[in-house]
């Protein structure tokens, strides 16, 4: 329809009102171009494109876009999902911003992100660089590094929960005992709970990053190493002056992706500690979950979606920043 209007407009001008006796009116001259265009569009593969696209469009509309729009609407409402919702303006946002737990959740999330950055970010790089130096059985080491990623996340967390047994007979505490370190409380203390979560998260995610870094390392031109060697560079110099600068782009992308992922940390605190002990591991996403579900007999779905919307805005800004910066890199 839109195609036809476009083509009719310059030749016909304003449409003339038609008398009721339609059949007497001669066909408008633009009819032929319209059918030809439609035919051209079909012949050009337009129909099959649309047909192939339709399932994806339907699935995205039903399962992604529509819930996103509904969440934004719900953040301005109060609802128990059963009765008609009432509009409450920005009340939900005000409520969330006044919740004393929000500050704790933000700080905890930042703490998680910081620890994940300190331990989780450099580790895969180091391992990838070391692995790229290995001459034999490279595939075996890659498989070994990637193995934790294959373990389903919930299974991994439950497994680590056993490892983190805080009694002196717990697995990790037994190992620490061999080297004379006293048993640690792991998940059972506010001070050590978050680092324990990060340790497991790093273990679980490092494999994927290692594979990406290994692939990136392959793209470093060997001539650069040869030239550095001719100039008398040591291994350390080669890594510092050749490898790392060459990986700069991928390092930055991985950094931004990690920041975005850690801002949404949920699985570990939810399964390991439920946010405890004493709210030491309540993260933003866990707080959203609590608003919506913990005491959901009247469910604060409005507040949950309000906080989700705020988080989404912050993450959108981060993503925008990521696109801007990577754009510059890809053009340079």
């Amino acid at each position: 329809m839109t195609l036809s209007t476009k083509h009719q407009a310059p030749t016909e001008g304003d449409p003339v009102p038609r008398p009721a006796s339609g059949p007497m009116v001669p066909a408008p001259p633009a009819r032929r171009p319209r059918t030809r265009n439609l035919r051209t569009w079909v012949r050009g593969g337009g129909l099959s494109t649309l047909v192939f696209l339709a399932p994806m469009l339907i699935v995205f509309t039903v399962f992604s876009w529509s819930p996103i729009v509904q969440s934004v609407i719900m953040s301005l409402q109060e609802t128990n999902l059963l009765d008609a919702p009432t509009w409450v303006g920005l009340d939900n946002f005000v409520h969330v911003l006044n919740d004393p737990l929000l500050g704790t959740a933000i700080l905890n999330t930042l703490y998680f992100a910081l620890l994940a950055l300190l331990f989780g970010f450099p580790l895969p790089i180091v391992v990838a660089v070391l692995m790229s130096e290995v001459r034999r059985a490279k595939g075996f080491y890659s498989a070994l590094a990637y193995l934790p990623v294959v373990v389903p996340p919930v299974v991994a967390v439950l497994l680590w929960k056993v490892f983190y047994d805080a009694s002196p007979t717990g697995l990790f505490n037994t190992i620490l005992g061999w080297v004379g370190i006293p048993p640690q409380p792991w998940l059972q203390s506010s001070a050590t709970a978050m680092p324990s979560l990060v340790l497991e998260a790093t273990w679980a995610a490092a494999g994927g990053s290692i594979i990406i870094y290994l692939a990136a390392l392959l793209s470093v031109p060997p001539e650069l190493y040869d030239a550095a060697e001719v100039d008398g560079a040591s291994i350390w110099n080669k890594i510092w002056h050749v490898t790392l600068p060459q990986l700069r782009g991928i390092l930055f992308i991985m950094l931004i992706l990690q920041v975005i992922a850690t801002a949404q940390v949920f699985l570990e605190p939810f399964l390991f500690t439920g946010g405890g002990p004493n709210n030491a591991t309540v993260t933003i996403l866990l707080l959203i979950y609590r608003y919506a579900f913990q005491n959901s007999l009247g469910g604060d779905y409005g507040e949950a979606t309000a906080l989700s919307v705020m988080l989404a805005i912050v993450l959108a800004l981060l993503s925008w920043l990521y696109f801007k910066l990577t754009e510059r890199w890809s053009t340079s």
Partner: protein
Amino acid sequence: MKSPRTVAIAGLAAFAMVGALAACSAGGGDDSGKTELRVATFPPGADAAAYDAFAEQEAQFEKANPDIDIIGVEYEWEGPTFAVQLAGGSLPDVFTVPFTDSKTLLENGQLMDVTDEVEELGYADKFNPIILDAVKDGDRIYGFPRQAYAMGLHYNRTLFEQAGLDPDSPPTTWDEIRKAAKTISEKTGKAGFMEMTQNNTGGWQLVAASAARGGSIQEDNGDGTYTSTIANDATKAALEFLHDLRWEDNSLGSNFLLDWGTINQEFAAGNIGMYSSGSDVYTALVRDFSLNPDDYGLTVVPVENGGGTLGGGDIAVVSPTVDDATKAAAVTWIDWFYMQKLLDEDAAVLDAKTLTESGQAIGTPLLPVLDRETYEESLTWIEPYINVPRDQMTPFTDGIWEQTPVGEPKGKTQEIYALLDTVVQAVLTDQNADIDALLEAADVDAQALLDE
């Protein structure tokens, strides 16, 4: 690119997709003209024998009511998913909810009015009035109280023996519990006592421990408002008790992030000497957590300073979204499945016989939802089928009638339990936790919730 074949394949793909989506939304209708009734069965994870027993009961019911088609649905009461399941239509037509949540559900219009049906069945007057109160709004009734429990102290007889304690005379005061816990911990290396702390159960248990010491965490002002009284001596004493076991005696084990399910799991695995939970938990311990019955012992929770034992229970309710025919079928099912075995000898015997044949627990100690006489009489009907070790539960079954039952707090119950979870966790994970300050802070937060 645009050959007829390509277009045909694309068309087929689209039809397949649409067909698949249509298939998703199909179903629900019953060609036989029977009323389909989706009823709650067990929490996910129950053993196969439980399902066999249910299938048998389903057949018995359908034989007696040929126009009703029962469909069992796995179900576990969970606050988090309830409202979503209700809105999404995936909740069974008949399900059970705890007393604590019935008031909120009532206020939210999430329960079906069954006053006429209860009256028609003729046992509206037979319910224990305190218990019926949990499902009433004015004079309207919104559910069938089907099971009630009092808090009990569950203990592991084998660990008692290993620690040199007599499993036939369990502790009767909080001091004795502390001593026994210390002994068990020292002699066996297992946790002498353990406490739930997560998913609102920490608050639930703290309120129970406070009630047992004569405390109450809120006052009902009678006009729909409540005053928080969390910062009281009994609650403080309950927290100090936990603090001493944890930090002075080191008899609480090493896991302070437990809830109802995980503490049951630990107990069934033989890692806990004693813990406090509902007296009806034995059924789940055996059915869902594979407890060895020989290990099990049950006694009353000690009460002092005029305190009582916190009670609770659940009610069978009908989803508020069902039509009249389904509602009628639902009431017929509730009456047959939950109520008649409490009232009628034949029904009680049939139920007990069916369950015993599949090895399900019969005779777990409960509190009567009707009157005590009817309850005790019903026990005599099913005596030949009782398979739970009631002789290991006599300290409870003898002692419970001397204790005053106390109802759970009514205002914002679960929200306040969640607040108190944090307090219990703080005491158990921070040696220098300031109990007074924690209680004061929780009191302020609770009052803010109650004033909302």
